[in-house]
C-alpha cells in the first residue's frame, strides 16, 4: 500500500515539500541546540520544563482522537464511524510520533536516551510513560495498517485485529493517566499535585483530540471530496461537546478547591496565570483568551441547530482547540513551575529557536499524517471506484 504515497497530485507533493522545508529550517535550529546546548531555550533553573514538554503533553491528548471513534465503533457497534476510524488511528500515529520527537529535543543528552531501557526504573513514571507511548504507537500502526489492508482486499479483518483494537482503547486511557501521573505525583508543585489531574487529562484529550480530527476531516472533505458522512460528523461533534463541558467542569473544581480552601500554595499558580504576581503578567492575556474561547465555543457547540451547521461547528472547534491548547500546552506547565520552590517568580517564555524546533516536529507530524491519510484515502478510492483525491470540492 506504501506505493500509494509515491504518486500524487502537485498539491500533495506541494504540501509535503512545504512541510519538509519548515522541517529543514527547524532542523537547522535543532543542530544549533545540539551544538550549543539548551541555553538557546527560555528554560531556566526554576522553570525547567517548558514549551517542548507542554507540546508533548498536549499531543498525548491529540493521540486520543482515535479512541473516541474506536470505542463507539467496536464497543457499541456504531458503524457510522467506519469511514473515519482509520483517519483517527493514523492521526494517533502522527501525534505519538510528535510526542516522542518533543521528548527527544527536550532532553539534554539525547544520545544517552537508551539509558531509560538499559537501566529500567519501575519507580519512575517517565519509564512507564515511555512504555505506554511506544505501545500505543505500535498498537495503532498494527491495527490501522492491517485493517486498511483487509479493507483494500475486500475482506473482514481477522479477529486478532479486533482484539488489538479493543486493547488500544484501554491503552489510550493509560497514556493519559500515566502522562498525568508524571505531574500529579510531585510534592511542592501545587498546580500539578491534584488527584483529578488524570481525569482532567482524559477530558481535555477527548475534546481537543477529536476536535482536531474533525477539523482536519472537514478540511479534507473540502480538498478531496472525501466524505465521512454527516451523521458521523454530527455524532463526533456531540462527543466533543460533552468532553469539553466535562473539561471545563473539572477545571472549575480545581478553582473551587484552591480558593475555598484558601491554601496559599494552591492559589499562587492561579494568581500567576490569571492576574500575574509582582507585575509578572505575561500569561494573563493568554489565560483569559482561553477562558473566553473555552466558554465561547460552548455557545457554538451546545445548541444542536448551531452545532449541525458545519461553518458554526468549524468556528466552535477552532475556538475549542485554541482554548485547550493554551490551557494544556502553555498554562499547565508554566503554572506548575511558577511560582518556584522559593515562592518567587522566575519568568519563562519560549525563545524563537525553541518555537522553530517545535515547528520542526509539528511538520514531521504533518508529513506522517499527510502520507498516511493519502494512503487511506487512495485505498478507499480504489475500493469504491471513485477518484477522490482529484475531484474538485463538491458544491454544498
Amino acid at each position, binding site marked *: 500500500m506504501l506505493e500509494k504515497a509515491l504518486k500524487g497530485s502537485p498539491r500533495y507533493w506541494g504540501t509535503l515539500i512545504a512541510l519538509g522545508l519548515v522541517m529543514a529550517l527547524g532542523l537547522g535550529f535543532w543542530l544549533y541546540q545540539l551544538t550549543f*546546548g539548551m541555553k538557546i*531555550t527560555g528554560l531556566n533553573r526554576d522553570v525547567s520544563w517548558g514549551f517542548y514538554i507542554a507540546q508533548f503533553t498536549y499531543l498525548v491528548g491529540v493521540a486520543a482522537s482515535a479512541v473516541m471513534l474506536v470505542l463507539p465503533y467496536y464497543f457499541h457497534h456504531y458503524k457510522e464511524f467506519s469511514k473515519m476510524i482509520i483517519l483517527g488511528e493514523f492521526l494517533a500515529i502522527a501525534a505519538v510520533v510528535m510526542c516522542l520527537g518533543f521528548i527527544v529535543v527536550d532532553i*539534554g543528552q539525547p544520545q544517552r536516551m537508551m539509558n531509560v531501557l538499559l537501566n529500567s526504573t519501575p519507580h519512575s513514571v517517565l519509564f512507564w510513560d515511555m512504555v505506554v507511548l511506544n505501545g500505543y504507537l505500535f498498537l495503532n500502526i498494527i491495527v490501522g495498517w492491517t485493517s486498511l489492508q483487509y479493507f483494500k482486499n475486500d475482506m473482514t479483518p481477522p479477529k486478532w485485529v479486533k482484539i488489538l483494537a479493543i486493547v488500544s482503547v484501554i491503552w489510550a486511557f493509560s497514556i493519559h493517566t500515566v502522562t498525568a501521573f508524571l505531574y500529579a505525583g510531585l510534592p511542592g508543585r501545587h498546580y500539578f499535585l491534584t488527584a483529578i489531574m488524570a481525569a482532567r487529562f482524559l477530558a481535555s484529550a477527548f475534546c481537543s483530540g477529536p476536535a482536531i480530527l474533525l477539523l482536519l476531516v472537514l478540511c479534507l472533505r473540502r480538498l478531496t471530496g472525501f466524505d465521512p458522512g454527516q451523521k458521523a460528523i454530527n455524532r463526533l461533534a456531540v462527543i466533543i461537546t460533552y468532553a469539553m463541558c466535562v473539561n471545563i467542569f473539572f477545571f472549575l473544581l480545581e478553582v473551587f478547591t484552591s480558593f475555598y480552601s484558601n491554601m496559599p500554595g494552591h492559589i499562587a499558580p492561579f494568581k500567576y496565570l490569571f492576574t500575574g504576581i509582582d507585575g509578572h503578567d505575561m500569561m494573563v492575556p493568554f489565560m483569559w483568551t482561553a477562558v473566553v474561547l473555552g466558554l465561547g465555543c460552548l455557545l457554538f457547540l451546545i445548541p444542536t441547530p448551531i452545532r449541525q451547521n458545519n461553518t458554526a461547528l468549524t468556528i466552535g472547534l477552532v475556538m475549542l482547540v485554541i482554548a485547550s491548547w493554551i490551557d494544556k500546552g502553555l498554562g499547565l506547565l508554566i503554572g506548575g513551575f511558577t511560582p518556584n520552590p522559593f515562592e518567587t517568580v522566575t519568568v519563562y517564555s519560549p525563545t524563537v529557536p525553541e518555537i522553530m524546533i517545535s515547528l520542526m516536529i509539528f511538520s514531521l507530524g504533518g508529513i506522517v499524517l499527510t502520507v498516511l491519510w493519502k494512503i487511506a484515502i487512495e485505498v478507499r478510492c480504489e475500493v469504491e471506484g471513485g477518484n477522490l483525491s482529484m475531484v474538485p470540492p463538491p458544491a454544498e
Partner: protein
Amino acid sequence: MKSNRREFLKLAAVSAMGIGAARLGFLGDAPAFAESVPTVANFEEGLKAKHWGMAIFTAKMTPELNAKCRKACHTEHNVPDIAGPKEIKWFWGANYEETFPTEHGHYLSEEIEHRQFPLLCNQCEAPMCVKVCPTQATFQRPDGIVMMDFHRCIGCRYCMAGCPFGARSFNFQDPRPFIKSFNPLFPTRMRGVVEKCNFCAERLAIGKLPVCVEAAEGALVFGDLSDEQSDIRKALREHFAIRRKPDAGTSPSVYYIL
C-alpha cells in the same frame, strides 16, 4: 521579596571576590587549589555513617560566612559561575521567606527577617528526585547521601520538577568556560546533565568533612543523625531546629537551628 534577594546576591558577590582575591594572592597563575592527590591510605580512612545530616546554626551564618562557604564549595566542585536564571549553584543563601515559604511568618523578628539562610541539597530521606529519575542517575547511598551519577544522566530534568526545594541545577551549556576557580582533582560536568550538592561524598571518602563545614567556623555541624552521641544529635537535642517544607514528605536531613 525580589529586592532582598538581589541585595543579598550583590553582597555575596562582593564578599566572594574579596575572599577569592585573598586566596589567589595577586592574580598569580598558580592554581588556587594546592591539595595533594588523595592516596589509597587516605581512602582507607574514609568517614562512615548510617545517616549523614547537617545542622545549621543560622544565627552564626553571617552573609560573609555564607559567601565563604559558597566559595569553598563551588571551588571544590568546579561549579561554574553563570549569571542569570540559568545559573548553577550547590550552596547559596536566601532570606527567611524564600527558605521557609510555607511558614508565611507575619510580624517576623527583625533579626530573623534579615538573616541569610544557607541553602543546599537537603539530602532527603525519601528523596523525590531519586524516585522520579528514569535511569537511576540520581540514587541514594546507604548512608543517606543522594548522589548524582553524571555518566548516566540523560538530562530529562524530571528530578528538577520533583525536588520541592529547588536544589538542582541543569547545565544548559558547557560549564567549563565559566569555572572561575578550578580544582583539578574533581571532575567538571558536561552540558546536558543535572547537578547538585553531594554532601562532599568525595571528601568523606578520604576522611574529611564537607568543605562548607570546614569553612563555616562551627556554624555548620555535620554528622551521623542515627548516632545519639554525635555532635549533630547533641546540637539538635539542645537547640530548636526546623526543616524546610517538611509537609512535602521528603524528610530533609538538613536542620535549621533558629
